[in-house]
């Protein structure tokens, strides 16, 4: 945040052309109406019956008074035609102004948001752990919008004010300098009203926002805690609390509305005072012959036309504040640096065979030690089982091995290369992880399975689905592989979701596949079927299977038992059972559970 809006200014050249076209239209769009008003004044003077009656001495300053002779309806029609022409040109300019300036701001918004998304995609969930997803979304929409408003509408209204206000005042000065000087009073008065009202309006609207949030939190709590409320017969108390919150919101809303009412009344009053000045001072000048009736009307119209850009500037003050806050909130996101760095000179060796070696791996999350001195060798095509209680470090190990989290230098090697030095693209192609929390996208089931790339064809999708025991389920869907998942489509069972995730990993055709406790929701029969299938497909692939279930692990070449981040047991299924340690206990427990299930 070296300079305000530095990043935003960087995008500006890309939208400059359209924006400048819009700005170029401003003088025409807001200047021509002033000319039209002058013509109206002139025509009104022309048709003034008292003016045309040979009043030779009455010529005062200004445009209309000099004409003297009464204007025939035909002449008036001619002037009317000119007015229409000018109005048409002004309308076209107004269109160009709005369309180009607002359009440019929309272009800007689009580029900004795209850049934000690209940045987010370079990060890992850990990097974003301090920000809630809902918050990121609101920044991506509301805050970018706030910055856009500054470039679009705010600039437009400002430019109009810059053209209209001085021109209108100059025109007034030409007609009647004294009256123009008096007119400064409503202009300054209006600016003052807006200035004075801006701060409390902002304060109260913020208060109203906060109280509204309180009300919705109170409602949310009441509804979420409905059982407790009912069990304690505390509904009336919750009602009273809610009412108190509502009362505060009421006060803030009423204060805000009253403030707005007073402000708008003050604006009206300022304008009416301007008209009053025109009536009294201008009327007196007309009587004295220094001004004409048409010019009087012209003054009133100029006043009405020139005041509103000032009101718009009042909005602009609020916009500026919101834009600065929004911009800073966006910069907070942009300033998060990706924790998984790219190697400066990445090793590109393809295909990777999948020989994994972990040596002396010790890791901590923010000073919280998770893994201690983990070492193992997994030859290409070999299989490794990992188990242990919740929180023993299994998932962290998986994330490090697959470089979802940056491991310490030299501790994790694939085909002899430190994973940190491997080209991320090669690494990703070689290693597929089926994470613990199955995440599917609300897209078709086909696209979910083929998520790894557009090169995966229907055949590959079906093969993967069959291996994951998912094909039959899919055939049961009304739209088959094109069935949409999520809100707009079907809701899969936990087991189906996990099998879809497995199919997705298999479709990517990796040389190393990591199953991170991904069969927990699958029933034991299907689990056995999937594992049997996997054995066939995993032929020649390196596999890491993390599981709580002994059944899922028993076929692995080697099994690691983790406890508090350390390997406490290591060996094959049979060896570990014989050892009678934690693994054997877990196996016994699961045997009883199966018995219970069968009863």
């Amino acid at each position, binding site marked *: 945040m070296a300079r305000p809006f530095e990043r935003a200014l960087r995008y500006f050249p890309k939208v400059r052309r359209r924006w400048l076209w819009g700005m170029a239209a401003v003088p025409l769009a807001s200047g021509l109406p002033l000319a039209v008003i002058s013509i109206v004044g002139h025509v009104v003077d022309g048709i003034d019956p008292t003016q045309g009656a040979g009043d030779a001495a009455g010529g005062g300053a200004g445009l209309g008074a000099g004409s003297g002779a009464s204007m025939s309806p035909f002449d008036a029609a001619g002037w009317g035609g000119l007015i229409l022409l000018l109005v048409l040109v002004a309308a076209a300019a107004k269109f160009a102004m709005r369309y180009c300036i607002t359009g440019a701001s929309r272009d800007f918004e689009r580029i900004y948001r795209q850049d934000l*998304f690209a940045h987010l995609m370079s990060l890992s969930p850990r990097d974003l752990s301090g920000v809630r997803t809902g918050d990121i*979304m609101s920044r991506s929409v509301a805050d970018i919008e706030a910055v856009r408003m500054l470039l679009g509408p705010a600039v437009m209204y400002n430019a109009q004010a810059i053209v209209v206000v001085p021109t209108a005042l100059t025109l007034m000065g030409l007609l009647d300098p004294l009256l123009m000087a008096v007119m400064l009073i409503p202009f300054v008065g209006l600016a003052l009203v807006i200035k004075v009202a801006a701060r409390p309006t902002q304060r109260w609207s913020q208060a109203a926002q906060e109280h509204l949030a309180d009300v919705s939190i109170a409602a949310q709590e009441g509804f979420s805690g409905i059982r407790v409320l009912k069990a304690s017969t505390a509904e009336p108390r919750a009602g009273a609390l809610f009412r108190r919150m509502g009362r505060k919101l009421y006060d803030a809303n009423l204060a805000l509305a009253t403030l*707005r009412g007073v402000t708008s009344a003050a604006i009206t009053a300022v304008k009416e005072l301007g*008209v009053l000045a025109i009536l009294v001072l201008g009327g007196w000048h007309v009587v004295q012959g220094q001004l004409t009736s048409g010019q009087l009307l012209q003054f009133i119209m100029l006043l009405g036309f020139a005041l509103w850009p000032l009101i718009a500037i009042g909005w602009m003050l609020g916009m500026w504040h919101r834009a600065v806050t929004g911009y800073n909130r966006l910069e907070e996101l942009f300033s998060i640096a990706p924790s998984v760095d790219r190697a400066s000179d990445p090793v590109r060796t393809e295909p990777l065979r999948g020989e994994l070696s972990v040596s002396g791996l010790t890791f901590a999350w923010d000073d919280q030690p998770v893994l201690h001195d983990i070492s193992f060798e997994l030859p290409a095509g070999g299989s490794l089982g990992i188990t242990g209680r919740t929180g023993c470090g299994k998932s962290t190990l998986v994330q490090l091995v697959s470089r979802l989290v940056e491991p310490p230098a030299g501790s994790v090697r694939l085909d002899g290369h430190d994973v940190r030095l491997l080209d991320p693209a090669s690494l990703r192609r070689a290693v597929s992880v089926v994470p613990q929390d199955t995440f599917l996208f609300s897209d078709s089931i086909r696209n979910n399975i083929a998520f790894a790339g557009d090169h995966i064809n229907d055949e590959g999708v079906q093969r993967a689905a069959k291996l994951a025991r998912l094909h039959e389920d899919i055939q049961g869907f009304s739209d088959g592989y094109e069935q949409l998942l999520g809100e707009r489509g079907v809701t899969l069972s936990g087991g189906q979701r996990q099998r879809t995730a497995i199919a997705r990993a298999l479709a990517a055709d990796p040389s190393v596949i990591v199953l991170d406790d991904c069969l927990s929701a699958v029933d034991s029969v299907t689990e056995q079927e999937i594992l049997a299938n996997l054995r066939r497909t995993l032929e020649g692939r390196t596999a890491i299977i993390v599981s709580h279930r002994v059944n899922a692990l028993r076929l692995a070449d080697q099994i690691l038992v983790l406890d508090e981040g350390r390997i406490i047991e290591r060996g094959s299924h049979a060896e570990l059972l014989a050892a009678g340690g934690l693994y054997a206990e877990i196996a016994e427990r699961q045997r009883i559970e199966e018995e*219970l299930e069968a009863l």
Partner: protein
Amino acid sequence: MISHDTDQYTFNRIGGASDRKLLRRMLVFARPHVAALLTSVGLLMGGLALRLAGPWIIRTAIDGPIATASATRGTPAFDLDALTAEITRLGAIFLGVAAGISLLAVLREWLMNRTGQSIVLSIRDAIFHHTLRLPVTWFDSHHVGWTVTRTTSDVDALSELFTTGVATIAYDILTIIVVLGVLTWLSPTLAVAALLVLPLMIYVSFRFRLKARLAYRETRRSLSMLNGFLQERLTGLDVVRIFRRQQASEQRFAQLNGRYWADNMATVKHFSLFFPMVDVLSWSLRVGTLILGAWLISNERLSLGTFVMYWMLLDHVFEPIRELAERYNVLQAAMAAGERIFGIFDAAEEVGPVPVEQCVAAAEREAAAEDAGLAPGTQKPSPRPESAASQLPLVQFEGVTFAYAKGPDVLKDVSFSIMPGQRVAVVGHTGAGKTTLASLLCRFHETANGTVRFDGRDVLHIPHAELRRRIAVVQQDVFLFSDTIAANVRMGDPSLSDERMAQVSGAVNADRFIDKLPEGYATPLLERGANLSSGQRQLIAFARALASEPELLILDEATSSVDSETEAWIESATATLLEGRTSLVIAHRLSTVVNADQILVMHKGQLREVGTHDELLAQRGLYHRLFKLHLAAAAP
């Protein structure tokens, strides 16, 4: 399961029979404010009259002193002082008018907003009040977020009906009619020109609003797609990384972002076209007026002052026409919100439906009591009848079978009884139906098959309030409110004295951590008590239960792991809580089970074994296996 927002308004839907019915229901809330609403309308009318007065004064000035001046200038009849006086007099009137306009505007804004906000307040209270009285099953099928939206945004949208809605629309229409009337009175010929152009303006305006609304809806749709995509990619960020789909995601995002942009540009185009179009139309009318006016004046059928007044009044027609279409949209949104809100009012309460009006009345009574310094429900619960016939069971389940909604049976033909003073533990694997027993007993759900009796009466015949006063429940997932610790302990009994609160907290070891907090019992809790550990939250729930001195305590022991010190506190607190009290414990702690007078072993919805710890172990059945499982799990 979730009822989705039906935010799709159909157009031209106002005026149907259902809408009239809806309006009538909404007007119930407006009834107490009739006087204020009528006054607002009066103020609006007064404001209108004064706004017409301004141009009239200008006309008088032009046709009066100014015309006289022109006619007499240079002649002896020219009397500057008299003319100045005349203009000053008109200026004074104008000043009065301007002051009146501003004053009326302030009054009107204040009154209309006060009325509108009061109505909002009473609707919001009524709906919250009503919702709390809905059966728990209703909450199972309605998302909390959805319900919250009804009480917040929808109520706000509905309030528009009362603030800027009905009164302003009426005022706009009235303004158009009155001003048109005045224009016709000023010059029928000129008014004909106006009547030719104005319908076109109304048409353009409504057409634009319709298009803008449709375009806006498209924008909302593409925005929600964009947001949905963003949210998914963020939640599934690791999946994106695993399969290295960042670039592909960016491309897809670019498409969606581009669609959102295109929809916005369509809106931009509509707006960019609309305003210049209105300009052209209004200026066509003005030019026509100017030419016709010139002709009328030259024929001496119109005075210049009248012409100027007419000219100035034209603005007063253009403005409401521009606004009218927008207000109509607001009205539609309000009606749609109203429909959703009244949908909740129509959901039946636990004990029969209560008319909306009564809800309002009840909410207001409570508020009045509150204002008078009386917390509601301060009366102590009536002293419980000492169960003279202690041989009668306090709780009795007879052949209870139960299923949630259309799901499978979670309880199958369950029968058992709890004698006064008895401690009963329920054990079983996850999903055995343990928690459902407690729900039926508190009448959160009602069983169709079998009977649940409390103190000899079918729970279906005991009023909720009485039942829940006599039974205290400590849930597994303790729910605390974002209020002070004291308020949470006092949940069931607001009149609980400080001494008693300290006493109960001490009895369940809660004081051990509360006393260490800088603000003690006044410590405010975050949402759901997030600033406490799960063990601390349980201790507060224990204190809450103990304070209410229940006849029956239902305790659903937590399974979440806590540190060993807290574990020891909870264990001794559990003992205190259960001491000499009739209780039903859904047990996870070995000590609780072993010390129970009776153990119910639930399995797959059935009550499979009943007995004491030793009896059941000897049976070597389900309980025996569960016990072994427990030991295996607890093994170091």
